[in-house]
């Protein structure tokens, strides 16, 4: 090992110093995700404001992590929540257990649940990771940039 | 002229025979007297067997054989049931019999009752035949007063009475087991067979069920002899048959002809007077509507059971509906499909859903929304109904549809390709039930 080798090493170092850094200044800057990135769930409503979810629990059946809980109830003329006969009175996802496999989205016969691109879901307590229906119906407060499909 | 009035005795007599004395003057009740005094039961059944008389309601099952199926050692009483639920489209031969010659039917039922040792006969008459029911009621009362019904019929030791029962107007109640259900006061729907009515029919008792015309032919067979009756027609189609002819012919009506002696062409053109000037024969449903439709190539077919089967159709109830070339076969087929959809009792799945589906498809074709694959779909659906249903309604009800699609395929293709079938003249509008 001689001086020659040392110089080679320093050369690499200097070369890198001149390059643009590969790291990103998260959280000030966020990496754009692919459109098909499976992040936080979202429940959807129809244009008329009725929930698409009818509380059929097929997502529960499909969920390999057993992290969804649905308790259904019947729509009444006074309280019409979804377009079907039934709606989800309780719709909870335990994000601490979710593995973001997207099976719930595949299982849903009404396109009521989708996996969106947001991935920032850290909380200080486990209880806060229990997402309720209201949380899932609302747009995520921390949107994520999405990049085009082909890099 | 091939007309031969054997069953239509009122025509031979030239008068309406609704009075017992008139009927007796015309030779009525001689057969019953002969049977009661000179023949025992087995001889009577044997006479029916030898006559070769086939059931005139549509199925054409030999009447004598049916009578011989009635068990003799049953602990339950036997019954004769007359199927007067004449509902097959284009068929109105029994109506005239009951209207103008009711005693002959009563005599026939009594003869059948004597032959099988029955205790009672029932006439199940369709609800719409209100006038005919009144005539039969009056005739039963007269016969009772004169001793031809009740304790010791005609002075013999044979006790027999007849009850008239009016249906409520359902095609399905012409099916023998549905008729029995209705007669028992239940919902008119076919029963699972076996057991057949001869073994377990009305009130689970041995029961002989025959059509009005079949039973009305019995007095003549006893009176003139089974051999005389069998000498008419062919070996398998003996005797005379009542034909109801309707449709675009000039002289629609009932005609009694000897089986096999007449061709369809003679029936349509000679007996029924042919069509309006300038019109040609287009199609005929010879045996009521539940048969394959025939085109002009079948005009020279002799009218008997075997020849009609050979021609790809059947004699059925001989309610012959004829169309000339002024109408639309496609629309006529839709009308028939509507009929079967409306009359399906709904008990078994293929009939309930299949008849509805067929009607919907034909309606689309008529409305100009047909697709070429619909013709194959019709074939496929019909194939999934025939032989898989509970009774004959759908088994035979798909025949006019499938046969029309096969025989008159061009008409259907034309309707699909040219935006449907134009609406006919208002005079042809027929109200559709249901």
């Amino acid at each position, binding site marked *: 090992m001689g001086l020659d080798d040392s110089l080679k090493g320093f050369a690499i170092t200097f070369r890198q110093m001149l390059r643009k850094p590969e790291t990103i200044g998260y959280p000030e800057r966020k990496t754009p995700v692919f459109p098909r990135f499976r992040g936080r769930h979202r429940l959807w409503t129809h244009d008329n404001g009725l929930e698409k979810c*009818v*509380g*059929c*629990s*097929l997502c*529960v*059946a499909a969920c390999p992590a057993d992290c969804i809980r*649905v308790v*259904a*109830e*019947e729509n009444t003329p006074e309280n019409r929540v979804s377009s*079907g*006969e*039934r709606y989800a009175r309780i719709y909870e996802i335990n994000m601490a257990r979710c593995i973001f496999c997207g099976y719930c989205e595949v299982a849903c*016969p*009404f396109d009521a649940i989708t996996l969106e691109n947001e991935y920032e879901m850290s909380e200080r307590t486990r209880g806060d990771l229990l997402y309720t229906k209201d949380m899932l119906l609302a747009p995520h407060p921390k949107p994520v940039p999405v990049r085009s499909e082909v890099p | 002229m091939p007309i031969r009035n054997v069953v239509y005795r009122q025509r031979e007599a030239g008068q309406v025979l609704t009075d017992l004395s008139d009927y007796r003057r015309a030779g009525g009740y001689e057969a019953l007297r002969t049977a009661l005094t000179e023949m025992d039961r087995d001889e009577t059944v044997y006479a029916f067997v030898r006559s070769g008389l086939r059931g005139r309601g549509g199925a054409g099952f030999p009447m004598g054989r049916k009578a011989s199926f009635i068990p003799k050692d049953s602990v339950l009483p036997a019954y004769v049931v007359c199927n007067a639920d004449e509902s097959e489209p284009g068929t109105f031969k029994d109506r005239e019999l009951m209207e103008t010659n009711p005693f002959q039917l009563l005599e026939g039922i009594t003869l059948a009752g004597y032959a099988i040792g029955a205790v009672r006969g029932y006439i199940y008459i369709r609800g719409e035949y209100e006038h005919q029911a009144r005539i039969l009621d009056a005739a039963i009362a007269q016969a009772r007063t004169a001793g031809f019904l009740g304790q010791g019929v005609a002075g013999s030791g044979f006790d027999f009475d007849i009850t008239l029962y009016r249906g409520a107007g*359902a095609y*399905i109640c012409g099916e023998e087991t549905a008729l029995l259900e209705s007669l028992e006061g239940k*919902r008119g729907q076919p029963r*699972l067979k076996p057991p057949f009515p001869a073994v377990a029919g009305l009130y689970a008792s041995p029961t002989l069920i025959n059509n009005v015309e079949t039973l009305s032919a019995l007095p003549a067979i006893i009176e003139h002899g089974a051999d005389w009756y069998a000498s008419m027609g062919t070996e398998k189609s003996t005797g005379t048959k009542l034909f109801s002819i309707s449709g675009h012919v000039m002289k629609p009506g009932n005609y009694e002809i000897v089986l096999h002696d007449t061709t369809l062409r003679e029936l349509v053109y000679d007996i029924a007077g042919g069509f309006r000037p300038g019109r040609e024969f287009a199609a005929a449903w010879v045996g009521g509507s539940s048969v394959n439709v025939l085109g002009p190539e079948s005009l020279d077919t002799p009218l008997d059971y075997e020849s009609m089967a050979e021609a790809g159709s059947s004699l059925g109830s001989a309610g012959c509906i004829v169309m000339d070339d002024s109408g639309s076969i496609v629309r006529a087929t839709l009308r028939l499909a509507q009929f079967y*959809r*409306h*009359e*399906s*009792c*709904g*008990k*078994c*799945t*293929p009939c*309930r*859903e*299949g*008849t*509805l*589906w067929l009607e*919907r*498809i034909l309606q*689309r074709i008529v409305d100009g929304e047909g697709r070429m694959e619909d013709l194959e*779909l019709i074939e*496929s659906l019909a194939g*999934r109904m*025939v*032989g*898989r*249903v*509970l009774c004959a309604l759908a088994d035979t009800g798909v025949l006019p549809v499938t046969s029309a699609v096969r025989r008159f395929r061009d008409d259907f293709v034309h309707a699909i390709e040219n935006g449907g079938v134009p609406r006919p003249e208002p005079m042809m509008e027929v109200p559709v039930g*249901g």
Partner: protein
Amino acid sequence: MADYAPVDLTAEGQVEFELNGRRVSAPAGTMLVDAAYALGVEVPIFCYEPRLGAPIGACRMCLVEIEGMRGLQTACSTPVQPDMVVRTNSDIAKDGQDGVLEFLLENHPLDCPVCDKGGECPLQDRTFRFGPGRTRFVEAKRHFPKPLDLSSVIALDRERCISCYRCVRFSQDVAEDKALVMQERGAAAEIATLTGDQYEGRFTGNVIDICPVGALTSIPYRFTARPWDVTNTPSICGHDATGTNVELTLREGHVARVTARPEPNYAVEEGWLSDLSRFAYEGNRAPDRLTAPLIRDDGRVKEASLDDAVDAAALVLGRGGRVGILVGPTATVEEGFLAQELARTALGGARIQRLGIPGAGLDAIRSQPRAELGDIDGAGLVVIVGGDPPNQQSIVELRVRKARRRGAAVITVGPRPHALEPVGTAVRSEPGRLAAAIAALDLPEAASTIVLWDEADLAAEPDAAGALARIVGDRGASQIELGADVNGAGLRALGLGAGDVLEAAAAGEIDTLLTIHADPLDGPGAADWGWALGRVRARIAIAAYASAVTDASTVVIPAATHYETDGVYVSMTGRAQRLRPGATAPAGAAPGWELLIALAHRLGAPPPYRSAARAFAAAAAARPALAGLDYDVIGVLGAPVAAVTPVSPNGVNGPREAAGTGLPLVTTTRIFGNAAAHRSEALASVRTGAELVLNPAEGERLGIADGARARLRSPHGECILAVRLAADHPAGAAFATTGVPGAGVERLLPADRGPVNVEIEAP
């Protein structure tokens, strides 16, 4: 859903035939579908349901190919024939199944995601297995407004109906209530009641179980859970003495519904439940359920933990003094046995008894050969003595009706009119004169006779019981006891008599009273018990529901209900069957056996076991009637206890002559007139109250009009009831409804349910 009839492939008279190329055999007369199923070949079905009677061949789902026969044949209506060649999987047979499913789905809405049947739906399952996968139907489907309320508990969705006729046949041919019919015809056919009224009866809920689609669904269960949200547990109904087998559906700790088991117990209920069995579960979370232990101290009530409450109870019991223990009729065998052990060891010398009918005079009839409910089916003659089975042991009604349909003669004898009387020949006996009526019976010859006798009625007339026992013996008949108490037979098997705690308490000889699922203040002799309990210094209650007794107890320990505990009930026919927990007890409650074991530990006499199973094994080892039984032997379908049912020597007979003056009191009960029915919201629209029924002549004599109120007074107590005048009730007796919470008819009765007379007057 039973679906296929059980087939004994080892029975005599086997017929050999070919099934899908396999040489097989099945007993002659077996329907092809059943034989095939038993042989491992599933032929799909919808309308076929062997429990509904002869097949009707309506749905055509079971089409199979049989060599030599035209078209396809329905396997449900074709008995196996020697050497027949059957194919269920040939192309033509598959086309048949495919075609029928395509037709069925033509008008079937694909609303499976909102349908309660989704996930446990025969139509769904069979479409997956045998169906086409896609439809060629492009037209609009049939539409009806939905859902309709067929009754307060059954929702009807006519769009989903596939016209299989199962519900209609159940109503017409099994329950024979003749209410459900098919209206209209063809594709417009729909299920409805004949009158257009609600479908009411004692067995309506069964149509929910047998519906092969989601056309008839349970309203109380509506949208409660999907099949993958729940666990199902086989258990026992627990609301009458028949031992009806049920399945409990558990979601998130609660009983979500009660259904018949998928594999019925043919010896008991045959898969049919009464609406009480099916819908009473809602009462499990009724407002009067005890959910927290209570300790009363100097008039102050405070909630306590279970541990503290058991400690407090042990403290009171351990103070010494004379202890009495009352075991209620819904206590399990384990609870009864543990109470006995307490009385034998830690509380040596304590008096212990069950609350119930003494019935020493019933030994003669009880020792006659027993029959199971399933044996009624094949009986040639069914004799019902006393009682009112349709209201008290409901499921018996369906068995008797079935026997009648199969040709059995039915004879009823008894003082009160009931729904099974019109089924056969009814003999009306005078109150308290059953013996005379039995002696006058003219029973026809029959190959097999089954006598059903009412425990309460015959206990009050020991000579009638004796006469009946002789008839049973002489004819070589068998007998079924129409038991009054849920687990009366189980407690008797332990040797628990209906003893003398009442007399002792009344005499001031009891200082502390421990009640276990026992509520003497709401049962027969309530008035006498009320007085006697006033003389007891301390009361400890182990109970599931609040009552007058728990209100007056020093320590109240909430117990699990029969929906929430392990245990054994012995049915009135002597069948030991297991309760399995189908729900979680409230946080402040525990199963009675656990509480009693804990109590024994605190009292310094710990039993050598800590589970219900071991407790039962100990009981079985100690009691001859339970010999040879354990949880495994009992299994899913139960096992008979030994026929000997020893009665405690301190059991006393009811007096033969009624006490008091006035009209003899005939007690009646109503299926929906008991506490269980009154607790269930689902049964709110059918529940009934208490009434006094009199013959119009009696009403006139007493000057009491229909609808008026009357005061009834017996030597034991009094109550006020609404009066109904009914000509079908005979003169010379007063008919009053017992069992209705708060009505107080029990106050008129002696504790042993013996006969009394009542004076009736306008209040």
